[in-house]
């Protein structure tokens, strides 16, 4: 990845009436990187994308493209193209005409248009689909046409707004790999918006975790997963047990009534902190050998492992283990120093990381989010 910055957002604020969608956001995007804006519905990720695309003007702040301020530059003059959530293919045109739409607007010679179209359809594995009608394509194929159409005009930056949201799981996984390949092959910047943390982790060079109009953390997928900055990030990315703790001194902390060695330092003595332990980092041991002791309250088979909820002094932990434990068993837990991650207290402390109210159904409900409403103003009711 090169270090030159292609997009720079400075002090961006956007509000719709009383509802502030972005609060003083600063973000630098490097050339040729795959950057993902990740967050729950309404966190401002789509708004950020639309500011970059030129569809929304920020109320405050500046947008720079390669050092030049581009506030007020309309979308059609930006070297940026978008894959829309519902693809927005033109239903009155066939596949070929959709792909060459942008090229025709540029009045390129017919030979060049043909050549680019062939190249693009090959890139997205849609050779031979030229004459097909958009309505006769499957969701995945429409997605590919949208990608070909956006890439045909050779953008410097491709914006992707939850592009895989409408596809089924299998297809989504395939497309993730394919998108990543395309990005690496073409060597252009991808700015990707999603609420799916797994998608973000597996594709991105950089992840920007957002909530409530604020950037919570920017980092590589490993950083974000291993060193979450606050309880929100820890909870949103993967599963986390987040307990209240005290940082006794450097390398020593205390939680759940026990002292633990850890790798973190730089906190004030006896500072109140949030402690994160990932479910897969906890080892199940016999009760007498456990650093913590608890009772298994539920067990779910997940294929790769069993997912257990363990009651430790009234706080419910999630533990993933390949060894089966029966419901009601007393077990001991062993936690390595490097499995413990200490975070400063934040506004999110105490809101996440307790599995006492955990249920699969609830989790699914909260994940099945609707598209962000800020862009749906075009959908009006029928006459």
């Amino acid at each position, binding site marked *: 990845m090169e270090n030159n910055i292609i997009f720079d957002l400075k002090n961006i604020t956007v509000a719709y009436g009383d509802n502030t969608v972005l609060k003083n956001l600063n973000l630098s995007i490097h050339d040729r990187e795959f950057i993902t804006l990740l967050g729950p519905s309404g966190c401002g990720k789509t708004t950020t994308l639309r500011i970059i695309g030129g569809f929304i003007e920020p109320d405050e702040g500046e947008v720079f493209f390669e050092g030049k301020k581009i506030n007020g530059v309309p979308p059609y003059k930006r070297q940026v193209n978008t894959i829309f959530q519902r693809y*927005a293919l033109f239903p009155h045109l066939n596949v070929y005409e959709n792909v060459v739409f942008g090229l025709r607007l540029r009045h390129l010679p017919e030979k060049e248009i043909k050549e680019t179209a062939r190249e693009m359809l090959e890139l997205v594995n849609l050779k031979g689909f030229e004459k097909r009608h958009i309505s006769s394509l499957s969701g995945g194929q429409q997605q590919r046409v949208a990608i070909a*159409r956006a890439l045909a005009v050779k953008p410097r930056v491709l914006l992707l707004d939850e592009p895989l949201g409408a596809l089924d799981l299998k297809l989504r996984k395939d497309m993730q790999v394919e998108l990543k390949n395309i990005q690496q092959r073409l060597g252009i910047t991808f700015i990707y918006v999603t609420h799916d943390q797994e998608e973000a982790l597996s594709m991105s060079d950089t992840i920007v975790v957002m909530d409530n109009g604020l950037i919570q953390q920017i980092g590589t997928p490993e950083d974000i997963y291993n060193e979450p900055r606050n309880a929100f990030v820890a909870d949103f990315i993967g599963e986390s047990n987040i307990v209240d703790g005290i940082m006794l001194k450097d390398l020593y902390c205390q939680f759940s009534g026990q002292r633990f060695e850890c790798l973190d330092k730089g906190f004030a003595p006896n500072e109140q902190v949030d402690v994160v332990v990932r479910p897969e980092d906890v080892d199940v041991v016999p009760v007498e050998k456990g650093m913590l002791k608890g009772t298994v309250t539920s067990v779910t088979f997940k294929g790769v492992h069993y997912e257990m909820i363990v009651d430790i002094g009234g706080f419910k932990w999630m533990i993933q283990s390949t060894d089966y434990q029966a419901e009601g068993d007393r077990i001991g837990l062993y936690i390595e120093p490097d499995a413990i991650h200490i975070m400063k207290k934040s506004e999110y402390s105490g809101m996440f990381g307790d599995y006492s109210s955990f249920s699969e159904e609830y989790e699914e409900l909260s994940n099945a989010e609707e598209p962000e409403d800020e*862009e749906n103003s075009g959908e009006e009711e029928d006459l």
Partner: protein
Amino acid sequence: MNRRSSLNSKLTVSPYIIWAALFIIAPLFFVVYYSFTTSAGDFTLENVQALSKYLPTFLRSIWFGIEATLICLIIAFPTAYIIAQKTDKIQRTMVMLVMLPMWMSFLIRTYSWMAILQDTGIINTFLTKLGIHPVHMINTGGAVILGMVYNFLPYMILPIYSVMAKLDYSMVEACQDLGGNRLTVIRKCIIPLSLPGIVSGVTMVFVPSVSTFYISQKLGGGSFDLIGDVIERQFQQSYNYNLGAALSLVLMILILISMAFMNKFSDEGEIVI
């Protein structure tokens, strides 16, 4: 399908079949029958041959119809576009305002235009008061077309609006995104996507404009006879049902041809929204 359910389905559709037979097929049959018979009921081609006399009237009707349709389209397209951009509440109000004149009788609306356009009408009284020379407006071709545009404009606005209101705004954004400026967006995206609305609007304005009567009598002062007026006279004054039917038949065929033409248009740009 067993016999019972097929009987049931026949029974269910029978009212519609009777309705269609009574009110669509029978009248059509009579139009054709009268067209090719004398008043005594004998077969004749006289009525059809007599039509050549009305060629100028036919041409004028078609020409006026085309003009009125085009003017309606020019007014309606931007109007529908503007309405569709507004919030739901404003949209509803504006659509109601568009339909409001339709709540009044066609007759009254046309009479009002007489009062407005007359040499001593509202506009000219106003102009005279301002010291401007009055303009002769009533009894001109322009007044007839104005009457058609006024009366049929809602039929153009509403179908275009309803297509535009359903238009996925991300299409517009996609067009901008790919390099389309405002004009391109309208030309390459909004017009083709609104085509079904335009086609039905054009049909719904052109057909009544071509066949209209009364407007030209009142606003054209009798010097701009349209085919609808001629047909009306055959039935109401001359009691020449046979010639009237022949005229109607030709008008019907003309309308069918133009509708087929318009449908071909919309088929080519078939749109699923």
